[in-house]
Structures are given as structure tokens and as C-alpha cells.
């Protein structure tokens, strides 16, 4: 396993999706979906409500089951290297996934303990990057919706993950926080990271290449 892990680290991160299909109940969400993504590239998933954007993201991180197709990470099928793939992804879903009775710092610290943390960045640094320094010891129950969202996004920064999967990351954020978060996204792409996100709001990723797929078209 360890050998496989170091092999994967050496390879340039590259995501490839081939012939992916997904149904929910009786409804076909998408079929024969193909795309690939290399280091420093972003993918924007577009489509109306209910077109399967969230399902696609959940499928990418292994929470859902695909009806057909395969997902390859660094030229390996992720089904065969699930643990290694999971150390490489960070996911912020529709729900924040933070515990309201814990403080912002406790929430981020828990993410660090559970995943593969970035040694150089502690929880305090990640929270400061999202302008939550003053609120780090406040129970999340007392934070506003946008502040809670920022705590959830701060979890991205403490993980050593190269592929970020974000479901509507900008929801509830104010204009200033959006600018700040866009800068963090560009820094992630600059580090050779990959990014897949859904959003209904315009997002500015500067000079980085943004691929687009439209679901439910």
C-alpha cells in the first residue's frame, strides 16, 4: 500500500472520468459523461436545479454509486485505490458538516485529525485566512450562516488534498468573503491543485483554465 501511495505522489495529479452514468430512482441524471482535469485546472459543473450536480460530486468522492463508467486518478481506477484517493480529496458539500456545539477551531482541528493534514498550517491559520480569527473560540451555533460556511471552507486549507470538490461553496458568503475565497481557490490552483465546483454565482478564477460541463441540457 505504501509503495502504491508513493507512486501516486510522484505522478502528476490527473483526473479522468470515462462514460459515467447516474440514475436517481427512475430518473436518468446523466449518461456517458467524460472529462479530464490536470493540475492547475478547474471544472465548473453547470445546470438547472435537480440536474444532478450534487449527485455528480458525491459520486466523485465515493459517497454515491455510479451506474456505469470509471473514475481514474493518477491513471489508476479509484475503486482499487480508495484509501489513497480519499487522502487526496477534500469535499465541502451542501451541508456544512460542522458541529454547532463545537467551536470553529475544534471543528477544524477535528478535520485535521481525521484526514491527512498539512503540517505547516494549523487550524488558527486556516481560520485567519477566512477572516474568522476573532471567532475561533466561539461555538458555531452562535455564528451566522455565512460564518458557518466559512468554517466549513477553512477545513479545505488544513488538508493536504490536491483535488477539491465544492458544492455551492459561495452560498451565504458576502461579497468580501467571496473575493477572499476566490483568492484561496487561485492559490490552490497555483500550487498544482485541481478543483471541481458547482455554483450559480459567477466566479472569477483569473488566468486559470476553467472547463465547463452542463448537466441536464
Amino acid at each position, binding site marked *: 500500500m505504501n509503495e502504491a501511495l508513493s507512486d501516486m505522489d510522484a505522478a502528476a495529479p490527473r483526473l479522468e472520468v470515462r462514460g459515467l452514468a447516474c440514475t436517481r430512482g427512475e430518473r436518468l441524471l446523466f449518461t456517458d459523461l467524460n472529462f479530464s482535469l490536470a493540475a492547475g485546472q478547474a471544472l465548473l459543473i453547470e445546470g438547472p436545479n435537480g440536474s444532478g450536480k450534487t449527485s455528480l460530486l458525491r459520486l466523485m468522492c465515493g*459517497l454515491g454509486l455510479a451506474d456505469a463508467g470509471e473514475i481514474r486518478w493518477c491513471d489508476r481506477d479509484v475503486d482499487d485505490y480508495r484509501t489513497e484517493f480519499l487522502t487526496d480529496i477534500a469535499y465541502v458539500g451542501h451541508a*456544512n458538516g460542522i458541529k454547532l456545539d463545537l467551536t470553529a477551531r475544534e471543528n477544524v482541528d477535528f478535520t485535521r485529525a*481525521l484526514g491527512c493534514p498539512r503540517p505547516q498550517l494549523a487550524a488558527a491559520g486556516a481560520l485567519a485566512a477566512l477572516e474568522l480569527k476573532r471567532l475561533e473560540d466561539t461555538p458555531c451555533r452562535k455564528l451566522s450562516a455565512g460564518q458557518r460556511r466559512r468554517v466549513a471552507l477553512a477545513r479545505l486549507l488544513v488538508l493536504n488534498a490536491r483535488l477539491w470538490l465544492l458544492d455551492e461553496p459561495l452560498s451565504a458568503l458576502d461579497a468580501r468573503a467571496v473575493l477572499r475565497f476566490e483568492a484561496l481557490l487561485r492559490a490552490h490552483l497555483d500550487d498544482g491543485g485541481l478543483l471541481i465546483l458547482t455554483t450559480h454565482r459567477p466566479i472569477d478564477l483569473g488566468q486559470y483554465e476553467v472547463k465547463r460541463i452542463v448537466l441536464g441540457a
Partner: protein
Amino acid sequence: MNQPRVLSAYMMLLRRDVTLAYRNRAELANPPLFFVLVVSLLPLGIGPDSALLGKIAPGAVWVVALLATLLSLDNIFRSDFEDGALELLLISPQPMPVLVLAKVTAHWLIAGLPLLIFALPLALMLYLPWRALPVLIATLALGTPVLSLIGAIGVALTVGLRRGGLLLALLVLPLYIPVLIFATSAVSAAAAGLPVSGQLAIMAALLILALTLAPLAAAAALRIALN
């Protein structure tokens, strides 16, 4: 994933769940409170006949302990399911059965361990003979973790349903029956001065079986429930 990281993830999740329970103290008190209230109502309803109460004490304590556990089971995964934290546990690189075991350990510390402590005065109140008290505590110590472990499978299967309460009871209660039978028979035997090592050995075997298989089953059930 080397060993120390898995262990630290286990400890972190255990500490997180105990912290959350401590910050929600009102909910923390529910299972022991139910246990104390129901058991202390029994003598009022049945009458102060010490011989009769002593005879039904093992069954009364155990049935109420079982129901108290059943009432608290939903807490194992429900809140994590609702706020999305369960998804993050599932896609963490840590092995899911270990994380399930951490959550069940936390549940037992919160809901199971207090029953052991309150059982002592309640059993005395029901005129259970002194010599049966250590055996009652031993059966609770061996049996309540089994109840939490089996319950975790049931909760994992029903967590995706909106009204899974009754289904949970139907799924889990048949599996609780062996624990109930061996525990009460051990306590009754001890009260009559008979040897109890056979029943306790079977309960220990049930605990080991649940400890090894239930986390795997619950982890698989969660994967299905969240799909």
C-alpha cells in the same frame, strides 16, 4: 495509513462525541433518568412485597435498561447524518469500522455506563439479594456494550429514513433477546445461590462477537444509507 494515525482518529472522534454530549447535558440525562423513573415506579405499582419484588428485580432492571438504551440509540448517527458530518466521516481516509467503533464507545460511555451506576441503588430498592448485586453489575457491564453495538447496526440501516423509530425497534429487539435471557437468568441464579459462570461466559462471547462484527456491519449499512 499507519497504526498511530488510526488510533488518534479513534480517540479524536471519541473525545468529540463525549464533548458534544457534555455540552448537551439535558439530553445526556435522558436515558438514566428514564431508567431511574421507571424502576422506581414498579414497587409503587406492585406493592411493597419484598419476596415478589426480589423475584422480579433482575427482569425489571434489565428490561428497563434495555428500553433506556433503545431510546438513546438514535443519537449515535442521527445528528451527524443531519448536519453532513457523517458524509465527511465516510470519505475520510480512516477505516470506517474504526470510526463506527469510536461512536459506539462514546454512546456506551454516555448512555450505558450511567445505567451500571444507577442499577446498584435501584436493585437494592427492589430487594434483590445482596449476593446477586455483583452479578447484576457484571451482566450490565458485559451486556450494555452489546446493546450499543447491535443498536448501531439498526441505526445505521434506518438513519436515512424520516420515521425510522418503530422500524429500529423491530430490527433491534429480536437481537437483544439473547442478551436479556442470559443476563436475567444469571442474576436470578445468583440470587438463588447457584453458579453463574456459564451465563456470564456466553455473555462475554456475545460481547466479543458484537465487538468484532457489528462495526463492520454498521459501516457497510451507513454506506448504503448515504448512497
